[in-house]
């Protein structure tokens, strides 16, 4: 074997020894190294040293790291990021928003109540909702008007009994497959749209169903020219 070949193979061996030791070389590479090692004391000694270095590094610590707490932190981060998804198509995002809108509306009701006054907080903890003060309604309007929803066209105006709990309110709205797009107004009126279509027949059926709910005082069709007002 020529000097040139020796030294080229020696250099290659010196470079690739770590991956020869871990078995991560291609077959031709590994075969060349193996052959060179039979002939080179220096590389053989280096290999023995690296084998030992690797063994020291791989000595397993008995400590295990419990993942649940860390996972919970990350889960909270994902949840707080909201229903924003990186991959939903525009129509998927709209569908997500419409189905999440109802749940979000109820969450916003809760948030507004808790944030506003102690009296409201007490009433929420007692399981009842009362009519919002004018100030609360103003904040609530801001919350529900973002993101802007398409409420131009047929809507339902509904008023609920003062003793209605949040759970009862959302149940009534869910039962007709509707969502809150505005409200409560100063007159405690909620504006609803149906999730699946706004044809007259569909609207009438929904309104009848709503009226049959014991918590609903008033439910009427209307046409909205929604401009952030209601």
């Amino acid at each position: 074997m020529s000097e040139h070949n020796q030294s080229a193979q020696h250099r290659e061996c010196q470079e690739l020894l770590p991956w020869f030791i871990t078995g991560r070389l291609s077959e031709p590479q590994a075969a060349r190294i193996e052959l060179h090692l039979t002939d080179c004391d220096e590389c053989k000694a280096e290999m023995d040293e690296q084998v030992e270095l690797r063994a020291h590094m791989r000595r397993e610590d008995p400590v295990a790291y419990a993942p649940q707490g860390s996972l919970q932190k990350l889960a909270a981060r994902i949840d707080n990021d909201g229903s924003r998804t990186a991959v939903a198509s525009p129509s998927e995002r709209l569908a997500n928003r419409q189905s999440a809108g109802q749940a979000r509306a109820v969450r916003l009701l809760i948030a507004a109540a808790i944030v506003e006054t102690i009296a409201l907080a007490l009433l929420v903890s007692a399981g009842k909702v009362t009519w919002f003060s004018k100030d609360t309604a103003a904040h609530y309007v801001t919350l529900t008007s973002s993101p802007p929803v398409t409420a131009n066209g047929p809507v339902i105006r509904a008023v609920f009994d003062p003793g209605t709990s949040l759970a009862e309110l959302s149940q009534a709205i869910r039962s007709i497959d509707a969502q809150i797009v505005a409200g409560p107004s100063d007159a405690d009126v909620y504006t609803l749209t149906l999730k699946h279509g706004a044809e007259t027949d569909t609207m009438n059926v929904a309104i009848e169903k709503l009226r049959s709910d014991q918590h609903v005082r008033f439910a009427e069709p209307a046409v909205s020219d929604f401009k952030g007002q209601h």
Partner: protein
Amino acid sequence: MLRTDPKITSGSSNDREFALLRRVVDRDRGAFDELYLIYHRRLARFLMRLTPRYEIAEEIINDTLWTVWEKASAFRGASLVSTWIMGIAYRHAMRALRRARAQGAVSFEDEAPTLVDVAQQTAETREWLECAMAELPLEQRMVLEFTYFLGHSCEEISTIMDCPVNTVKTRMFHARQKLKVSLPRLGGSAE
């Protein structure tokens, strides 16, 4: 002798992770949790070799899996799932560890080394080793860990660290040279 580590190159474990990632694209939280548990274990073991502080490791792990959650749809299967995720982890780790080093939070000299119940000589060697490795430039340390601790190939490491294969080899070579200088003779401390 020393042949291929099946855990690294197993087709079936990559298939499993790929299937989980596919479900993560569809926002399947159960699949994400499963993927998280797999990588938490792998990354925690690895990162706790680079820092004594779990909160730093946790930050890196969570930043990594957050990126996986956000960017799952970007993965096309051109590499192993593990290569892709380790690449993400590497970027987050380098950022966090550089910051921690600057704040003096990573030096093992500040921490009393935990000696497991081993022969005294091996324990002392390990202590020397940990100090010497903590002194290495981070990129060189990373190549060493990716190679010997995690068992990645040279090509995989070049993908993970986003550098040429020759750079990987050079970094490994320099790391070995530095350890030779710092360490007492390794040979002779029998396991």
